[in-house]
């Protein structure tokens, strides 16, 4: 798995909604799960040409509460469909799980990251170590990487690949809590 991304910065503000801002709600309601379909509509309600302008390796930089709202996974699948990485000042819990389950390389929380770069900057991010280099500004910043256990899910391409692997290794997993209060 390649954790090193280099590309153009696309900076957004605070509280981008998962439904609407990042991906039109209709794809969540239709339970569309194909990243190649969803990529065409990424951020289209903010910038209709966004999907045409981004290139693989580019980096979305979000502010606080990136992906807020009813936790639907489609927006994160759309980001992955383009081969983009994501850094955000914060991601609400439901969307954090969805970003993992979508198999998306990301860093969050990244305090003040929206002040450390702007749209058009040349960025290099190592998602396994949390290091961000802003080559335009000549600065390097360090964030906390996602835990290894969660990066392993991303490395499997997301939830489905991860669960398939767990199912294959099922025999080695714990199947009962040590003291079960549920005596029925």
């Amino acid at each position: 798995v390649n954790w090193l991304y280099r590309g153009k910065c696309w900076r957004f503000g605070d509280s981008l909604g998962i439904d609407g801002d990042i991906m039109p709600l209709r794809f969540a309601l239709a339970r569309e799960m194909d990243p190649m379909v969803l990529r065409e509509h990424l951020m289209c309600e903010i910038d209709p040409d966004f999907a045409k302008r981004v290139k693989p390796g580019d980096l979305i930089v979000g502010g606080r509460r990136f992906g807020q709202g009813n936790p639907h996974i489609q927006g994160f699948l759309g980001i992955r469909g383009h081969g983009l990485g994501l850094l955000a000042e914060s991601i609400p819990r439901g969307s954090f799980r969805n970003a993992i389950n979508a198999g998306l390389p990301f860093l969050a929380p990244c305090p003040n990251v929206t002040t450390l770069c702007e749209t058009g900057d040349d960025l290099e991010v190592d998602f396994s170590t949390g290091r961000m280099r802003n080559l335009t500004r000549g600065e390097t910043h360090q964030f906390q990487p996602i835990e290894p256990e969660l990066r392993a899910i991303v490395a499997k391409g997301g939830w489905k690949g991860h669960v398939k692997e767990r199912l294959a290794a099922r025999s080695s997993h714990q199947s009962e809590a040590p003291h079960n209060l549920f005596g029925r």
Partner: protein
Amino acid sequence: MGQTITEKILSRAEGRPVSAGEIIHPVPELVTCHDWYVVNFDRALTELGVDKLFDPSRVLISTDHEPVATTPQSSERQKRVREIVAKYGIKHFYDVGRGGLGHIFPIEIGMIKPGMFIEAYDTHVTNYGAVGALGIALVTEISEVLALGSVWLRVPETVRVNLHGATRPGTSMRDIAQKLIADLGDELVDYCVVEYGGPGLASVDIAGRHALCNTPLEIGAKSALVEPDQATLDYLAPRTSGPIDLVRSDSDARFKAVIDYDLSAIGPQIAMPPTPDNVHSVAKALGTPVHHAFIGSCASGNLTDLEDAAKILKGRTVHPQVRLYVTPATQEVARQAARSGLLEIFLSAGATITQAGCGPCAGGRIGAMAEGETSINTGTRNDVRRLGASGDIYLASPMTVAASAVTGAITDPRSLLEETRS
């Protein structure tokens, strides 16, 4: 270093001591799912090639979102749910007319005990915190737990809320629960468990504890629970056998914050559109005409809630422009409401009683609003279209909803309670 209730519960479920921030795979003692997602998890499991659940004796399915099928499609879905329950051998199936609302009746029948760890499809499983259990919602990842018995979880931090004093007449724990989330704020409680304790907790009954544990997830809390106490033991004694371990936080447990909250300082509240934490004193919305009213839901569908509503509705009638739906949360609440005469009060007032369950709050499948109407209700959320068509939704206590249904406009229930007394 001591542990919080949440850390203790998760330590037992993980089989080793854990603390906030760790990534773990705790094994739940119960997994719950409602009627609207059973077909979906079956499809997900089938796609993964799974034909056996990790432990069907720990799985509970409740038909509460649409107990009375309203279309041929929903009758077909109910049939599929029964087939799927049989296929996997799921042990705890509470179909139409049996349990009722799945976040409430398992507590009522003594299935949920202090210290238990439960995972669920639906978000409001946090209600199980009313007896000191930890309920965590997983939404679609429920399929992973059903197949494998666990899913990753980051041990949440805890925000401790110490309650003081007691509520004043005309104010209920629903008002407190609503105001509390607005006061705590999403910044503080994001991914935390809200733990209630303090001297004021003793005066809060089981219905009030449900309300307290129901609202925090609306602002991003992972769950909520009360520190189990003598009232918990008294509640559980007739419902369950065997020893009960009152799992409490250690005196040196680490909390993200400790908040003191005075129950006597709060009057009737109202959550204005479009979010449950847009909470103001009811005074701010007085006189707003309403067309649709509903009392029930996992936040406010217990017997105490119906008794509160009946205090207002007794001897009065619902305003001609308003339709009022009353949904007892469970079959048992409905039975007690019948026995104690509450249903007679509601029916005499012109209210409509619906089958036990979620009622209109489950997406407005029954008793929906029409376009441009205004609703006041005790449901959990007031997003646009939560109850079908678009229109303003106000959330309030059962007393405030009942008072507003009587006058046809948003009303401070204390004005009608005073009339009742005089």
